[in-house]
């Protein structure tokens, strides 16, 4: 089942009154893939991502995530995805462990499974000894890494990352991407939006949205070849201008 498709989007249209935010999107994402979702601000990325997460329903078109239609089976979809955004990582006035326990219960993990997996993930981050510290005492980089850990705590089939590395230093970004790769190796599909073009290079495949349409969708190498440029940055500029 190498080519199992965990996200299928066909002719997705989303309109807000007269304004069309998504004008007929078509793409799919394979299991275990790291899928980069790029686009200028206002290109319609966030709208599409909200629809994929079941936060908003499409005007028309078919959207299937983790094998379920988001329009009719949003609840099933929600159980099988993880989500993390730059804006909010974790509850600051709760400790690391309390945050993890809260989200594990919300995602329906049983206690023993949580203890085992939670401890394992925290030890990997070398945060297990500090698990009773308030999240507010952590630096932004640590918070983001921890937030990612929490997002994959319940072993979702897909994790959505909305600009996860915004405002984070290059070393932490590097470590963050190592975590992403590890998750992907364990079969978790990663759907990531970013404004950093070097990060786009790390993705298996990349889409670039312009004005509500998908103008390019391929591996970074092929995109560079197609537009005859040396970096994803130039691909982006060629398209989004």
């Amino acid at each position, binding site marked *: 089942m190498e080519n199992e498709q965990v996200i299928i989007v066909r002719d997705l249209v989303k309109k*807000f009154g007269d304004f069309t935010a998504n004008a007929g999107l078509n793409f799919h994402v394979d299991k275990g893939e790291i899928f980069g979702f790029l686009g200028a601000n206002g290109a319609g990325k966030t709208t599409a991502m909200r629809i994929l*997460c*079941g*936060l*908003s*329903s499409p005007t028309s078109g078919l959207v299937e995530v983790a094998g379920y239609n988001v329009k009719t089976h949003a*609840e099933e979809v*929600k*159980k099988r*995805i993880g*989500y*993390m*955004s730059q*804006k*909010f990582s974790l*509850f600051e*006035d*709760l400790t690391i462990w*309390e945050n993890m*326990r*809260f*989200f594990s*219960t*919300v*995602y*329906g993990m049983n206690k023993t499974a949580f203890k085992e997996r939670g401890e394992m993930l925290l030890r990997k981050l070398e945060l297990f000894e500090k698990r009773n510290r*308030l999240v507010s005492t952590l630096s932004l980089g640590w918070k983001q890494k921890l937030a990612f850990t929490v997002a994959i705590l319940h072993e979702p089939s897909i994790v*959505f990352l909305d600009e996860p590395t915004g405002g984070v230093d290059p070393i932490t970004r590097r470590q963050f991407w190592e975590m992403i790769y590890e998750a992907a190796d364990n079969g978790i599909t990663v759907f990531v939006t970013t404004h950093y073009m070097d990060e786009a290079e790390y993705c298996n495949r990349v889409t670039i949205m312009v004005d509500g349409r998908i103008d390019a969708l391929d591996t970074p190498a092929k995109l560079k070849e197609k537009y005859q440029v040396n970096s994803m940055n130039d691909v982006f500029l060629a398209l989004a201008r």
Partner: protein
Amino acid sequence: MNRFLAFVKKEFLHIFRDVRTMMILFIMPIAQILIFGFAITTEIKNASIAILDKSKDEVTRELTQKLLASDYYTVSDYLSSEAEIESSFTKGRNKMVVVYEPQFAQNYEKNGVAKVQLLCDASDPNTARILSQYATGIFASYGEMAQSNGIQAEVRMYYNENLDGFYMSIPGIMAMILMLVSAMMTSISITREKELGSMEVLLISPLKPIQIIFGKVTPYILMAIVNILSILALSYWVFNVPVKGSMALLLFECILFTVLALSLGILISTVAKNQMVAMFMSLFALMLPVILLSGFIFPIDNMPLVLQWLSNIIPPKWFIIIVKTIMLKGGGLAHVWKETLILVAFIVVFVGLSVKKFNVRLQD
């Protein structure tokens, strides 16, 4: 259910770890009760007065004694001439000067009429009115005893025999605190979640919106109940305000009002974009009307007609009527069913509007 409990637990942790929230939830209600009970009282004790006795006979002395025998006055000065009156107001803290006319006892015995003048410092009109009324009463009763003719009016103040100002403010304070704790705190805590972006994370999670809302509201219902009990306990043991009616009914009405305030808080949070807006909306949309228009401080019957109409859409007005009826008059559900239904109607409207707003937002 586990999800819901985990959510409620998280909310409690938020509350217990935030010193300011804790202060608002627990210290403020008690402080307000004590302040209203002890400081803002409409009755007067030991107001200092001055006496200008131009007659100095046994009748004036007896009258002065009678004034002092009440708890209302203490004499700070005995004046010797009218010239000193003005300065006794400005220099001293005298609230009233009592002036007996010359040959007071003689006039009284001969003509049955003697004149006493009460000069009050009306820069504080309420105090002035009350002080002069008390004194007039004392003089009148002396006159009646002496000659027992004319019409005697016997006045009894029902439901609040001593005319304690505090009786009047207890229901109002309860309305205010419940509004504050329930409406303001929930609207702030929901908008905080929106502002931080955690609301999005929660909505994406398998938690249902209804679980999120109820999870937000549950801790505040419990807090409100704690507050209700502490207010009642304080007013009973510290200020001796009795609960004449059924305690169960009173608690039921309080919880009903709490639910109303919570639904209002939810409504505010669906409209407000951030915590600041939520707080200002709660303060201006809730606190001011509660204080000004609910009949808490200013009697509704004395308001202009337009404001009287307006007061009908202020929920605390009905709550205050209910609490007064149950606590002070000992009324039962038969006496307050109409007001109770009005509260229920408010809840239905607020919840309906919130659900509508919430659904509109999810559509986007």
